[in-house]
């Protein structure tokens, strides 16, 4: 008898001699080639029982296909998510009615301008309030008051209004020539 015949005999008789089914985790640990705490017992059972040896071989050959499936599943979910995101971006980027978009922009600008105007900070201190109260009665219209002061003092005020209005040169030259 040679070693091959001994191996055949051994496998034939150990195939249906399984006292206990293997623990899945222990079998996977062995299949991955990792050493764990209960590997020795599982390893002994794999050598002793044909079923466990067959399952270990099966688990090892299952690994590449399982890894491939995991990658494919992940890709399927990722691709689907990317498609959904693309759809959302596209719907946001493409205006359905350009005139509506322009009108919306104008309205938004108006709202911003009004809100800025109405929310200007106004510092109201007690001194300001008191000054307003004392001057409210005798200042009157500041424009006319300034004209009156100008006439009284003879000081030069606004150069534009104080400037002598020279006659129009164009018309004077034509009339003079």
């Amino acid at each position, binding site marked *: 008898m040679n070693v091959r015949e001994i191996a*055949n005999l051994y496998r034939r008789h150990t195939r249906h001699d399984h006292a206990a089914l293997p623990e899945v985790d222990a079998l996977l640990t062995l299949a991955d080639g990792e050493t764990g705490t209960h590997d020795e017992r599982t390893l002994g059972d794999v050598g002793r029982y044909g079923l466990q040896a067959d399952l270990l071989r099966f688990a090892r050959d299952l690994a590449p296909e399982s890894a491939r499936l995991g990658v494919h599943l992940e890709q399927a979910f990722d691709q689907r998510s990317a498609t959904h995101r693309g759809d959302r971006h596209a719907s946001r980027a493409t205006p359905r009615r350009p005139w509506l978009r322009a009108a919306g922009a104008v309205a938004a600008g108006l709202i911003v301008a009004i809100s800025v105007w109405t929310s200007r900070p106004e510092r109201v201190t007690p001194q300001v309030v008191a000054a307003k109260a004392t001057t409210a009665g005798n200042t009157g219209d500041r424009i006319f008051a300034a004209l009156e002061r100008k006439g009284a003092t003879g000081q030069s005020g606004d150069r534009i209004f104080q400037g002598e209005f020279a006659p129009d040169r164009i018309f004077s030259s034509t009339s003079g020539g």
Partner: protein
Amino acid sequence: MSIDPALRQRLHQLLADYGTKVRGLIESHGIGQYGIDPADIEQEVRIRLWKALERDRNAAFHTSYIQRVVLTTVIDAIRAANARPHEPLPESDESGATAFIEPAPGPERTASGVEDFDRIMACMAELPERRRKAVALHLQGFSLREIGQFSGTSEEAARKLLDRGMEALRERLAVTGFGEVDERT
């Protein structure tokens, strides 16, 4: 988790392809001889993986998780098959025709085959544990590389363990009257 129809169809296709491969592996490894139906396993694996995807899709992406689902399914099926009462063999009909043609008993099916096996087991039991494990794994058909990987040693160390173990086994078998064991495999 809601899965839209297009994605659902793609996932079902992936699981179907994987199930077919699992079935092929079960058949090629002879797991069917332990009383399970590869087609049933294929179907059950697809159902369990689909439920896992619905429950927690991230977990279902891991290789070890997928392997665990398949192995658990197979072992559950073997356990159920072992628990089932064996169907009695049909008896010969009244005409006396033989229902089955018994294969001619080969040397491994005879009583001497059992005796030889018992002798081998007795001799292996006398080996040191590490050598015994290396010999047992070798007889189960694992390569030196696999034996080294399972034992946490190098391939060279596994070879030394196996050589010494096989040598000791041959010597013991010769002593018990087993006859000479040819080293050829």
